[in-house]
């Protein structure tokens, strides 16, 4: 209907919200949520106005944001990746150990690449070739990875030999900007370009909207599934390396906090869990929202239980206000 209106007329007469496509409107909404949450943070604690505090939040948001790249792609093709936590932990422990063993920093990156590729391909194999629901398949893979990590580490004490490059990527501060944030900006730019300009992006949306139609139009379904899950696993493995640099150690269970917050970030960012609608631009706001909420609750002097209740309630309220399904 709105197509029939002359664009010039539309631009002048209609309010901003009506001029945007539904996708753009949802992205705008996620940034409005971000503004509201930030305002709430500042109202609770003036510390959030200081660059020092915000820099910490940006680093935290980097971890969630980089995982959210793969998760956004997975959700866009109508899937989900729940193997993230132990991909993080395995990559951190194996990467730091082997890098220390061989005395070479690049070994850690080789481990990240190998784990990302292996986990991603196993995920894609189960989800695409065997048609197992990704919710349960990636969960089983997560369990397997947990087992592998436990067997490998034999429940040893945390490794503290972290490659300096990991520490620099997570904690470095060139030109007053946190290095981790720069890494995130770089990865985000790649993700947004890939999703909006490359054929890959169009094929991802095509699969999410209607897999059968995508297949008939010549989309290589298997290849796209493989790429998406490898991107997700690579992101998780890389975050594992960053986290080991951030806390100067790699320990069992370090990835457990990173299962659901990135998914919450994707959802707040306006990507539909049913697939085919949304994008990474919104997920960036989503990652910041989740991190700011967590940080704000830490500054409140309440018990851990109350903090969880408040976090759940705010998240629920955000979903209720902005993310209701049609109908």
């Amino acid at each position, binding site marked *: 209907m709105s197509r029939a209106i002359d664009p010039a007329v539309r631009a002048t007469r209609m309010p901003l919200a009506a001029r945007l496509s539904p996708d753009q409107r949802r992205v705008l909404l996620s940034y409005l949520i971000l503004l509201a949450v930030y305002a709430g943070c500042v109202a609770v604690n003036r510390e959030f106005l200081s660059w020092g505090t915000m820099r910490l939040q940006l680093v935290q948001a980097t971890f969630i944001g980089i995982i959210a790249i793969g998760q956004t792609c997975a959700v866009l093709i109508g899937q989900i990746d729940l193997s993230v936590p132990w991909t993080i932990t395995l990559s951190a422990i194996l990467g730091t150990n082997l890098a220390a063993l061989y005395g070479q920093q690049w070994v850690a990156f080789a481990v990240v690449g190998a784990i990302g590729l292996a986990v991603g391909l196993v995920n894609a194999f189960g989800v695409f070739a065997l048609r197992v629901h990704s919710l349960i398949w990636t969960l089983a893979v997560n369990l397997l*990875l947990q087992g592998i990590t436990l067997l490998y580490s034999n429940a040893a004490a945390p490794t503290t030999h972290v490659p300096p490059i990991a520490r620099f990527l997570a904690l470095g501060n060139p030109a007053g900007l946190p290095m981790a944030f720069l890494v995130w900006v770089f990865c985000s730019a790649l993700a947004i370009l890939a999703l909006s300009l490359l054929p890959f992006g169009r094929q991802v949306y095509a699969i999410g909207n209607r897999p059968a139609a995508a297949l008939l139009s010549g989309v290589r379904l298997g290849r796209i599934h493989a790429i998406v899950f490898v991107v997700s696993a690579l992101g998780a493995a890389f975050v594992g390396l960053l986290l080991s640099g951030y806390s100067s150690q790699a320990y069992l269970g370090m990835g457990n906090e990173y299962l659901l917050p990135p998914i919450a970030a994707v959802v707040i960012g306006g990507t539909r869990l049913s697939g085919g609608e949304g994008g990474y631009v919104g997920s960036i706001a989503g990652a910041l929202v989740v991190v700011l909420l967590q940080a704000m609750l830490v500054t409140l002097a309440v018990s851990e*239980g109350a903090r969880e*209740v408040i976090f*759940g309630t705010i998240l629920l309220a955000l979903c209720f206000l902005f*993310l209701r399904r049609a109908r």
Partner: protein
Amino acid sequence: MKPPEAKERRRGGVEKHAGPLSCAVGLVVLIGLYAIRQPLILSPFGLASLANVSVALALAAVGQTLVLLTAGLDLSIGAEITLINCFAATTMGSSALSVASVVVASLVIGLALGAFNGLVVAYGRIEPLIGTFCTSFIFAGSALIILPRPGGSVPDGFAAALTGNWGPLPFSLVLLAAAVLLVWVPVFGSRLGRYITAIGDDPESARISGLPVRRVALASYMLAGLFSAIAALFLAAETTSGDPSIGGIYTLNSLAAAVLGGVSLMGGRGTVMGPILGSFVLSIILNALGVFNVSAFWQDFIEGLILMLVLGLGGFRVLRAASWLAVLRQ
């Protein structure tokens, strides 16, 4: 020659029971292997202990199945179990009257928590995955407020009544059977059960046919909450205390047990025996690993591998399909 529809229908019938059947076979094999290594397991005490380690998961999985049948998903089951477990362990006292009233209150709380989920998902129109994820924080946080660290207690009589055995018959199995007979069977004997399956099978047609989609979804989450409450009470009896982290594993394991038992995550397909047998298989494998002196480190690896194998086997029927298009249209 039978008409093709009859063949189709027969295959559908076989597929419906493939999950429970393979779980039943797996269960027999498992118990057999277990008995070779540890013959005492076939004694009344041994069987009761096997039942006791499995029943909580079975109850959670049956609740999860009710929601999965409507094409929903409940990620708050573990948190519901935790909250009710903490509530029961802190308030039960020791008199018969207080025990009875806390049991009733726990069941009501289970229904209420489920109703909250149902309101969020069905009336609030929030995706089940994210909606029940949010409520799980609220429930688990409330449990931490009630009971910040493991503690509380339940009277010995209450514990014995749920975890003891009468000859070869463990009370925990009686509890599970009672829960199924008093909740599942009446529900699926009524219109509600048919609506649940119909909505899971095809939500859009169900809505157009005028089924009360929202009310049915609400009911399924409430029933899941009820099963969580029974599981929580059983866990309180088994550990004779409350623990604010007790429920964590049940969310995802209930999902795994349901899928092992042949319940479809897309809704509309599943039986009650499937998730129960799936839970027993899953719990007994984990329990057996400990008995066989397999290092605890192997447990997750083996559980993950078994899950992947079982799920993957189900996927091999895809290889028989004529083309990917046929697969995608299923």
